[in-house]
């Protein structure tokens, strides 16, 4: 897993900041350690704001809004797909944070708490709406013969042609459309993992799943996204 993904929540205390152990460089995501450092610094910076928020300081809420609204909005918008829905969710999240700040005990990171509020609110909203664009995954997943070999051969390596065939803007749109077709929980897992850089463990806590279930969902979602790209390029998803 990511270098920082193997960290446990207990290791993420502010006190541990200066004595942070060096993580082994086994990750396929090279900036994971840097992300962890940034995250820990943010936690440290949050402490004062949280205390002020608990005391009902309105300026503290605005400071927290300025710090987290862009990231939380991205998560909500990606899950919901509609600006108005994302606005409503973010509004509720920050108001809830203000009202319930006193009940925040610091057992979880403050940012985790905010993300969790956002994801839960967004998933609740998407479940209640009828606007879901999700499709059956089966058509875009790899297929195999009875003996376990790929059913369509040869499997084409289109990894180098993707950037040549599509302009960046087109590719972004293509990916956005494909993401919108994922099941909401899978989409949330992809957004939290690939766009927010969260660990499987953190995602599991947010989505109320086991770590193993998160891995399964991430893998299946990536297979689906791969299949969508393959089909767009004129190849078989299988």
């Amino acid at each position, binding site marked *: 897993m*990511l270098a920082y993904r193997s960290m446990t929540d207990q290791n993420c205390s502010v006190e541990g900041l200066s004595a942070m152990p060096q993580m082994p460089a086994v990750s396929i995501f090279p900036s994971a350690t840097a992300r962890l450092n940034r995250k820990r610094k943010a936690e440290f910076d949050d402490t004062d704001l949280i205390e002020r928020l608990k005391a009902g300081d309105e300026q503290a809420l605005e400071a927290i809004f300025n710090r987290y609204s862009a990231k939380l909005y991205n998560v909500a918008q990606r899950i919901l797909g509609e600006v108005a829905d994302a606005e409503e969710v973010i509004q509720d999240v920050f108001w809830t944070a203000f009202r319930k700040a006193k009940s925040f005990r610091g057992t979880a990171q403050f940012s985790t708490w905010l993300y969790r509020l956002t994801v839960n609110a967004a998933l609740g909203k998407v479940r209640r709406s009828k606007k879901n664009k999700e499709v059956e995954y089966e058509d875009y997943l790899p297929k195999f013969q009875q003996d376990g*070999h790929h059913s369509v051969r040869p499997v084409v390596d289109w990894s180098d042609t993707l950037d040549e065939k599509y302009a960046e803007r087109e590719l*972004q749109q293509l990916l956005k459309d494909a993401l919108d077709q994922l099941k909401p929980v899978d989409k949330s897992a992809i957004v939290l993992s690939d766009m927010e850089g969260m660990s499987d463990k953190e995602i599991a806590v947010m989505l109320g799943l086991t770590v193993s279930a998160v891995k399964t969902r991430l*893998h299946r979602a990536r297979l689906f996204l791969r299949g969508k790209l393959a089909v767009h390029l004129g190849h078989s998803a299988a």
Partner: protein
Amino acid sequence: MTPRNAVTKALTDKTCKEITDLIFGYLNDTLSPSVRRDFKRHLRICSDCVNFLHTYKKAASVTRSIRPEEIPLKVRHNILDFLRGQMRKSGTDS
């Protein structure tokens, strides 16, 4: 096709389907050393799985490159106005 399958089966216990199931663990470095060895041994003789792995990695890397949705200025103002209003109200109520 048949000879290749026979060679594949002879050299490794893993099928392409099993290899596909292991990709996530392989890329995240969570496979046990023996499974990782089997995985790599299969890749050495199966160009289909090599190509599949390349395209899987590509899909994952382009997904990570999706630009974040920026919060529109109007939305930002709307939310801040709402929060200020609510805080004022709650201050008056208490």
